[in-house]
């Protein structure tokens, strides 16, 4: 098996599993209980909070544990919009957000908010000047992702952050695909809220975090017990949270090393594909990208057919985001970048991980050559 879909999810790091194990066995206490077993769960919880805060340049009390990236996005966007409803009703986001952000913004529109979706250039980046020009008296929230899940393109967030700060507008980023892949510091980015999800960096599924800068107005969408500063109620998932912290620690620690390795691997992969296969374009290649993602469009063949051939050869990749598997529509991200629908259809996202090897990439390149030749052989648009 050659797994090249690390943007969909990653295997759990064995050390993360080991860190979680005691909290799945003996240390099972409820972190809100007052006796020893509870306090020791609490202590693990707070150590994890501290560790995660450290990795992001935040303060421990600014970290809220959630059930994943989608939930973090929802709490951030709904929470701020509802808290500031009386101040204004305008939200700025981009056309290339993940559905967790996009659909939430659309839900806000149904509630009466006005949402501006920023365009991106052909490289897949928004223009910070566009942010400035769309800010009005009614603007209460800017939410732009840090790294795109399909192309890996990194957005110029420091500049957006500066604008947000100047204009005193709350700024959220969906950093689910960036955390663990590039250094992320909430102060460098000037963000007020930042979403992350454990299973994207060799951590557990079903657990994430939301960074909430002190004094950020937020109206918690869900209510219950007084957990997580009232922002996210419910018995704390201690093993998951410990795993999240350990995974982030490991990812941040090995970041320079892994980045270097994957940059080399991808460089060779892309260069070879471009040299050996005709009619290929690599989307977002002109922009800064996270080191592991390569989004390739193969002319005149269809992505799902490529994927199935890859699967038959034991290679796992995806045609875009995992959650759009069932939808036949072309990727909204590629459409926003101006990729023609026909080209977008032949798109495969390869997302590499720390354990991929040179040999695996060689095998994938061979496979791709054979598969594209084969599918083009039967393609009705081959003459193009």
């Amino acid at each position, binding site marked *: 098996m050659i797994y090249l879909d690390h943007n969909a999810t990653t295997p759990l790091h064995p050390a993360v599993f080991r860190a979680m194990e005691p909290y799945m066995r003996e240390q099972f206490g409820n972190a809100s209980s007052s006796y020893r077993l509870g306090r020791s769960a609490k202590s693990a919880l707070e150590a994890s909070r501290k560790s995660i805060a450290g990795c992001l340049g935040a303060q421990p009390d600014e970290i809220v544990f959630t059930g994943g990236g989608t939930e973090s996005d929802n709490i951030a966007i709904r929470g701020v919009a509802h808290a500031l409803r009386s101040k204004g009703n305008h939200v700025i986001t981009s056309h290339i957000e993940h559905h967790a952000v996009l659909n939430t913004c659309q839900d806000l529109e149904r509630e009466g908010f006005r949402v501006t979706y920023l365009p991106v250039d052909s490289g897949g980046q928004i223009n910070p000047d566009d942010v400035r020009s769309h800010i009005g008296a009614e603007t209460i929230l800017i939410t732009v992702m840090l790294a795109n899940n399909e192309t890996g393109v990194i957005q110029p967030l420091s500049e957006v952050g500066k604008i947000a700060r100047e204009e005193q507008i709350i700024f959220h980023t969906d950093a689910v695909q960036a955390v663990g892949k590039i250094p992320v510091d909430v102060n460098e980015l000037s963000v007020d809220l930042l979403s992350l999800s454990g299973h994207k960096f060799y951590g557990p599924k079903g657990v994430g975090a939301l960074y909430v800068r002190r004094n950020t107005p937020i109206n918690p969408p869900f209510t219950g017990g007084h957990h997580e500063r009232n922002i996210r109620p419910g018995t704390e998932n201690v093993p998951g949270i410990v795993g999240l912290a350990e995974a982030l620690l490991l990812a941040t620690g090995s970041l320079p090393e892994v980045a270097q390795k994957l940059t080399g691997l991808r460089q060779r992969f892309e260069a070879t594909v471009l040299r050996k296969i005709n009619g290929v374009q690599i989307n977002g290649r002109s922009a800064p990208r996270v080191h592991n993602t390569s989004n390739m469009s193969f002319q005149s063949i269809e992505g799902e*057919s490529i994927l199935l051939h890859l699967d038959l050869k034991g290679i796992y990749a995806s045609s875009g985001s995992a959650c759009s598997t069932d939808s036949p529509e072309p990727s909204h991200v590629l459409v926003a970048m101006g990729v023609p629908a*026909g080209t977008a259809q032949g798109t495969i996202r390869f997302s590499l991980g720390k354990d991929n090897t040179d040999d695996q990439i060689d095998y994938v390149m061979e496979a791709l050559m054979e598969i594209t030749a084969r599918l083009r052989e*039967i393609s*009705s648009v081959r003459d193009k």
Partner: protein
Amino acid sequence: MQGGRVSGKNRGRFIMEKRTGNWQDLYRKEREEEPKLPEGPILFYNDLVIDHFTNPRNVGEISDSDGYALVGDPSCGDQMKLWIKVKKKKISEIKFRSFGCPGAIATSSMVTQLALGKTIDEAKRLTDDDVISALGGIPENKKHCSLMGINALLAAIADYEEKRGRANPREEEL
């Protein structure tokens, strides 16, 4: 106590009745029967579909075809081309090319296989369901793909009939 599997519909009731019985063993068994690592490469395509996808029958073009069609599926933007040659009112040769998903390729391949050798009238009676059942079923969300092959076949036959009508206007009545 009838033993054996418990069907989805009756399971609730079953549990209520057997609370003190051995239903949980039956249950776990059923769960374990659920494929942990499915045999096929992609769970939702069966082996025959995979076969038609990897080795599509009748791929190609017919330069001197008697009927031709280009059809597309507007919902996904996929498209296919299909050519037929007719001898003695029978489809004597049929070829296709497809820019489509595995479902589209496999169903198109099956359409050509089903149509080859059939009379025009027989071919016209082929339906979507014939294709799907000949393939042993395809996933629900792929049913629209199977339409493309049938539509291409029908369009190519229409093209043939139109051309023929023009060349030999009387034959229609024979």
